[in-house]
């Protein structure tokens, strides 16, 4: 955890929860996990206050706890969940997107959930009705129905995710408890091989659990009912009964930031194709991503789940113009030279997308007619574009030229760089050192002799994408921390 990241985390907590929670959170962020007594020591606060702060943090899914036995007491350790804390920076965008995708009801639900951390559906609706009131034309019942519908939709699309009491325990402790359960079933202590197989099966179980049905949603048979079921397609009819999916009323939900991040990333990937090919290509990519999105859990996955062309054909938005935007070779069209059919167009489009040099869309190895998106290459390309944009805005075109050349050609020496980029060596040297202090370039020394005399070593410059991305992220955290700190100072001067 870098200094700037810690500072940003602390300022986020201060912004949302006040100075006392900030002190507790800062101690936990910097020093790791500790029990209440130790926190009270470090922050000079009373234990009661520390407990209230920890309560607030756990309520908002920012802290987790673990209980361990020490001699004869059971001590509870608390730890901060860094990823959730940094996700809070995205809250404005989350609110905006929930309005965009789920309309005003969705925005209100997201706001209520973000205020309270986690809520059940009934409490959430109560809270919204209390805070926003009811428009004069509608009754409370209608409002409740529409809010329930919006909530159910958000749960089904996994924008809201269920929270279980086990989520308050640290992930490592949960894994250890499960392992212990398994090993206790065996009489002898496990060998290394057995332990490895146990871990693998538990890992597979966890994977399956995440991909399976959504927790918190239950299905029941219900008579076809106007206010609720009229727009739903009939899933299964048994006389007049229809399967209706409802959210369970006693399960707590929270905003699932991962899902929002995945959707934003998918939009960015589709946008790559707009500049490169045409808007129709972008729509096709977007549809593929929407179909594959259901199985995506977080941004770190390498490839999406496969999507078949048939499914794609059925789900394309109605106004995509496939036919007019493609030009077919007259010989392919057949004897009548008639307009090509839609599925031929789609085939051709998918072929073009696949042949594109970005290598993002690929055929699924096992099955025919199914395509897979290579998310890893897509995110590399997005990162590279972003870094280029940052360097170009901050330094200018010659710097970007050097960076691009190094990214394409690998490791180069000063002399070669100046030759390829057509700039004098003095200029090149200055730019290289600037980019290196900025964090984008790396230097590799290759000595010619046993003693590493500077005059007899090769200095090779290169761009390592992951390192560049990390350094720039750190810079971003630095800037964000600065902005917040400045805002606090200026506000307190005027208070």
């Amino acid at each position, binding site marked *: 955890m870098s200094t700037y990241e810690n500072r940003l985390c602390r300022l986020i907590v201060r912004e*949302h*929860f*006040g100075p*006392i929670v900030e002190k507790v959170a800062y101690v936990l962020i910097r020093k790791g996990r500790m029990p*209440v007594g130790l926190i009270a020591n470090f922050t000079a606060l009373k234990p009661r*206050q520390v*407990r*209230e702060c920890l*309560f*607030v943090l*756990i*309520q*908002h899914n920012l802290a987790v706890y673990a*209980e*361990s036995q020490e001699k004869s*007491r*059971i001590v*509870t350790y608390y730890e901060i969940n860094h990823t959730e804390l940094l996700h809070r920076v995205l809250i*404005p*965008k989350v*609110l*905006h997107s929930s*309005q965009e995708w789920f309309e005003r009801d969705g*925005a209100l639900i997201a*706001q209520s959930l973000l205020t*309270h*951390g*986690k809520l*059940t559906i009934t*409490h959430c609706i109560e809270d919204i009705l209390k*805070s926003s009131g009811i428009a004069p034309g509608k009754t409370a019942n209608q409002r409740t129905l529409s809010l329930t519908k919006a909530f159910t939709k958000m749960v089904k699309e996994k924008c809201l995710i269920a*929270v279980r*009491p*086990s*989520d*308050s*325990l640290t992930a490592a*402790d949960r894994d250890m*408890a499960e392992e212990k359960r398994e090993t*206790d079933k065996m009489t002898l202590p496990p060998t290394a091989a057995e332990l490895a197989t146990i871990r693998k099966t538990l890992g597979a179980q966890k994977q399956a659990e995440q991909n399976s049905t959504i927790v918190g949603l239950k299905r029941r048979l219900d008579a076809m009912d106007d206010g609720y079921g009229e727009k739903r397609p009939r899933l299964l009819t048994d006389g007049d009964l229809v399967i209706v999916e409802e959210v369970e009323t006693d399960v*707590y939900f929270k905003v699932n930031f991962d899902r929002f*991040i995945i959707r*934003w990333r998918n939009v*960015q990937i589709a946008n790559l194709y707009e500049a490169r090919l045409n808007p129709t290509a972008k729509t096709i990519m977007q549809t593929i991503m929407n179909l594959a999105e259901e199985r995506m859990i977080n941004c770190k996955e390498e490839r999406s789940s496969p999507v078949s062309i048939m499914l794609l054909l059925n789900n394309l938005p109605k106004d995509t113009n496939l036919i007019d935007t493609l030009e077919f070779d007259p010989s392919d069209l057949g004897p009548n030279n008639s307009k090509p059919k839609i599925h031929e167009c789609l085939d051709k489009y998918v072929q073009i997308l696949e042949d594109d040099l970005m290598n993002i869309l690929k055929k699924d190895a096992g099955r025919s007619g199914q395509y897979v998106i290579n998310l890893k290459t897509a*995110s590399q390309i*997005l*990162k590279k574009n*972003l870094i*280029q*944009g*940052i360097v*170009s*805005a*901050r330094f*200018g075109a*010659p710097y970007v030229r050097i960076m691009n050349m190094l990214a394409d050609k690998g490791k180069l020496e000063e002399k070669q760089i100046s030759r390829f980029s057509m700039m004098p060596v003095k200029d090149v040297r*200055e730019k290289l*050192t600037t980019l290196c202090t900025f964090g984008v370039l790396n230097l590799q020394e290759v000595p010619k002799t046993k003693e590493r005399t500077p005059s007899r070593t090769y200095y090779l410059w290169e761009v390592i994408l992951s390192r560049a991305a990390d350094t720039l*992220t750190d810079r*971003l955290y630095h800037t964000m921390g600065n902005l917040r700190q400045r805002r606090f100072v200026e506000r307190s001067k005027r208070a």
Partner: protein
Amino acid sequence: MSRGGGRGGGRGGGRGGGRGAGIPGIQTFGPDAIQATFKNPGETYPDIILPVARPPTDEEGEMYIAMKKLQETLYSSPYYLTEPKKPGAITRYTDRYHQDQAAKRPKLDSIKSNKTFFPEELHSILDPKTVTKRRTVNSKFDISQINENEEDGDGEIDPETGLPKKTGDGDDQLDEEEYEDEEDEDDNDYADNYFDNGEGDDDDGDDGDGGDY
């Protein structure tokens, strides 16, 4: 990363041609760089040309309004913890106008949440009537059973947390009392701290008054 896309993506403020206003007036790199040293740290606030940011887009405006509303809600919610202002020695005229938000916020126990999410020591915050007992784990160490079964001493393991379940405290006390009796049997009040067995004898003695302890 796409996460930082909204902020850093090629739309940095002050874009201006080749080496535009993106670089402030002070050179910190290149051949005429000004390096700060201990003796010459430079001015605290040197003159720089601040880049002018572009105006916010509509989307950003909407996001700002939504976030501001959320922050106001959070500020007046029970989750924002502050110390209530102590009433000063003198009541002032402005006390009426400087309202103390801490008094107006609802209390933490009015939150609708579930106790199962929290560890036991925090249950009293949600429900003030819970009395938290200090949890100890009793490891029964019965000498007569030591040959029978070594695993019996720890009791059951709680499947959730992997810790032994709590059992009664009664047996522990009995064991302690037995040990205490044994110590008292020596019947000597100063048994532990009087006899030093020759350990205190190696003072130098050359330092004068060092012998009176």
